[in-house]
């Protein structure tokens, strides 16, 4: 996956910063397929809800709309910054991957427990396919869960395998 890191304009990020939003959206849309835009937030002391709403939610919406897979990750946000992002993305029904200082990936935003658990399983295993999900689930439920995580920008497809007896199964990796 192609990765681009972004340094943000300052340590105090507030208000509806349309200039930064437009610059980042332009850059994001110009990235090749299978790209990851990493917002490095380690140095950010402060981010209000409006900044998170205007910039991060806009990028996540662009990620969902993109025909080619492009993803957004926030790296090392503080507790306060995470809380602003969580609140802003939840309003839009979006989700955002957060990676902490130890490299652990979690999801910000509203996500059902079953989808959250599936994402965590993908993170723990490195890759996931329908075969890895509990046998108590129907094949269509397994498939739908993975597709929903892909739609939310939390998993991406890396390959497929042929199933015994015909058909194929997609293999995913977690966005992080």
């Amino acid at each position: 996956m192609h990765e681009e890191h972004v340094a943000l304009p300052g340590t105090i990020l507030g208000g509806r910063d349309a200039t930064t939003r437009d610059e980042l959206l332009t850059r994001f849309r110009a990235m090749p397929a299978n790209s990851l835009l990493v917002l490095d937030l380690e140095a950010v002391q402060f981010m209000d809800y409006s900044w998170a709403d205007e910039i991060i939610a806009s990028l996540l919406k662009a990620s969902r709309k993109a025909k080619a897979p492009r993803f957004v990750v926030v790296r090392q946000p503080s507790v306060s910054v995470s809380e602003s992002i969580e609140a802003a993305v939840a309003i839009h029904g979006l989700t955002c991957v957060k990676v902490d200082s130890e490299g652990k990936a979690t999801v910000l935003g509203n996500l059902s427990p079953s989808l959250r658990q599936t994402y965590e399983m993908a993170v723990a295993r490195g890759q996931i396919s329908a075969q890895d999900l509990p046998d108590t689930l129907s094949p269509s439920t397994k498939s739908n869960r993975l597709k929903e995580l892909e739609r939310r920008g939390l998993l991406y497809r890396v390959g497929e395998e042929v199933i015994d007896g015909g058909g194929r199964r997609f293999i995913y990796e977690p966005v992080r």
Partner: protein
Amino acid sequence: MRLVLTSGEGLNAPSCDRLLAHLADLPARDAGEVTVDLRSAAFVDPYGMAVLVMAARQVQRHGSRLICVLPGNDRPVQTMLQTGLLDALRPVAELRNLPKESSHKFPSPLPATAIRSRSDVQTVVGHLVDVTRDRLGYNMGDVLDTAKVVSELCNNIVDHSGAEGIVLAQLGSDRHGARYVALAAADDGIGIRGSLTRRYPEAGQWQDGEAIERALGGLSSRETGGGAGLRGVTAVVRRYQGRLTVRSGSDRVFVSADRTPKTHRGALFPGTLVGISFSQRS
């Protein structure tokens, strides 16, 4: 016109209603002398102080000048000095009963500051964080939550009001020893209903209270973004068991942790005024 606060009364939301009711009746030109006599005021809060500045500006626009007779009581005068209110009033009002210069030395975490641009907001937020964390020793979580509230309110002035605003805050301790923050942000712009009407023409038919409640719930006048600002402010106030008052047009909406928003009809406030108070969590 003369508004006199009686003994024991404070410059706060109820007394401001009287002031605003008087101002609503001012003639368009040559309004004559408007005096606010605070000599008997027992206390002043940021909400009342913000109204006073906006009122002075309104009187000035009417071709007159507001005369403010300052409190005789030491405590409200100290609050006015600490919050930088007198500096904010001087360009737009005539001050009488001024305290001695020697008593002007108080630390101010958020002195009354004019908000005209995003850089003003950045300055205010940076100053607030520095003073409350480094000089007053507030814990970082509380500092950042307060800063978020201030940032949202000030950026709303820049983004939505179409006018200049003011923000000021007061820090203190309640009778249980818990530190509290009281702050107010005000502007004399187009108001919340006016702002929402830009995107939703039907908002022109709403009552001001309905427009305020919808904005608190996340309705935004902007095409981008989802109204996270006031909604986030409300969440912080509820989390801290605080109180939030939003006044715009003819209505005032009160929000607290344990109640649904309640709308009160009052005198016309041309613009938007937000008053918040909450105590530190730890």
